[in-house]
């Protein structure tokens, strides 16, 4: 007794040979037809969002290259971004020159000491001093523009004290004193 599948197998084999033969035959399209199809494809452009997403999603750039490019961009931003103006009290003609200035403060009992002033736009946290060294001395070296500066020490984050070693102090307008620091650079001619 023959099954249904055995009855169809000769036909299946014949169709298979025909399809195999068709696949191997080269497809030649008329030139006009090719041009028409490409024109139609170009006319149906995808939306901007789809094109942007496609551009982002397609792996044109390796992650390593992208990382290098990004790092270079950030470095460029840091190097060439506009600088904050701090020259209102600078000496005329001093330009962008800075002068090393060492500040010391005696505070044997302090846990931390910082200095703030116009050179850091009165940043409430200030620049930390290093210490305490021997005999409770704290110190820091700053690079300051030549000119007149006002500053004050912050002891343990709460106590504001002028520099007792400085040449002069001036009323701060709030009932306390600021230290006056004169940073000269020019030679008097």
């Amino acid at each position: 007794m023959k099954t249904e599948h055995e009855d169809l197998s000769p036909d299946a084999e014949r169709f298979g040979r025909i399809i195999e033969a068709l696949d191997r035959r080269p497809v030649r399209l008329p030139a006009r037809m090719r041009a028409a199809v490409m024109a139609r494809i170009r006319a149906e452009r995808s939306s901007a969002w789809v094109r942007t997403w496609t551009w982002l999603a397609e792996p044109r750039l390796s992650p390593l290259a992208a990382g290098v490019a990004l790092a270079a961009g950030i470095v460029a931003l840091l190097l060439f971004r506009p600088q904050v103006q701090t020259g209102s009290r600078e000496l005329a003609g001093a330009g962008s020159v800075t002068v090393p200035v060492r500040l010391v403060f005696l505070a044997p009992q302090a846990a931390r000491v910082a200095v703030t002033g116009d050179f850091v736009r009165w940043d409430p946290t200030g620049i930390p001093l290093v210490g305490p060294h021997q005999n409770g001395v704290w110190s820091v070296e700053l690079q300051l523009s030549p000119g007149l500066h006002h500053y004050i020490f912050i002891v343990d984050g709460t106590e504001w004290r002028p520099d007792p070693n400085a040449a002069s102090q001036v009323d701060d307008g709030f009932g306390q004193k600021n230290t006056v620091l004169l940073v000269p650079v020019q030679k008097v001619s």
Partner: protein
Amino acid sequence: MRVFVGLVVLAHAAIAALAAQDRPVIESRLDPQTLAAVRAIIDSARRDSVPLQALEDKALEGAAKHVPVGRIVGAVRQLSVELRDARALLRAAAPRAALADGEIVAAADTRRRAVPAVEVSRLRNHVPATAPLVVALTVLGDLVQRGIPADQAREVIEELIAAGVSAQQIADIPTRMDVGLRVGAPPLDALRSALPIPLRPVQRAPTPLRPNPSRRALP
């Protein structure tokens, strides 16, 4: 793909952080009420060519010291008046000379330290354009604070500048003078021993503002 999106997000965060850094400092540190009041004073001061950063700094200083709003605004307003007066004083003394913001701030500081306006004006009038006026004004205030009469202090500075003494040497005088004061020397003696060069003795006499006063030294 995920790495790329992550990098883009990172770049966005970095750029946003940089933009926040470049925002005017007073906007980020002052509360809206103080900011509005300080802005009004600064806008007024701008018309008078007063150094604006000094006013901003005074407001920032008050905020850092946790001073109440009213006192911050009062201090900024007071400084604005002092800077305006100092600018007028310097401008009147030398109408054609260039005037730097630092010189105006230094003159205001000197006036705050009880130096008479006439001595600031005379010093401005006699200090050459090439000499650092900021140093001269600041040391004038330092010497007056240490008990030297303002006219004599001003004349000493003028003598030193005329003799070609460096700005650094002039700036060091108050600290050197403190050595003498600490052992009980009278201010004039302490000053004399702190000078980098001996000055010629001349008789003391009041000096007119114009024409150029004769230079005198310590008695």
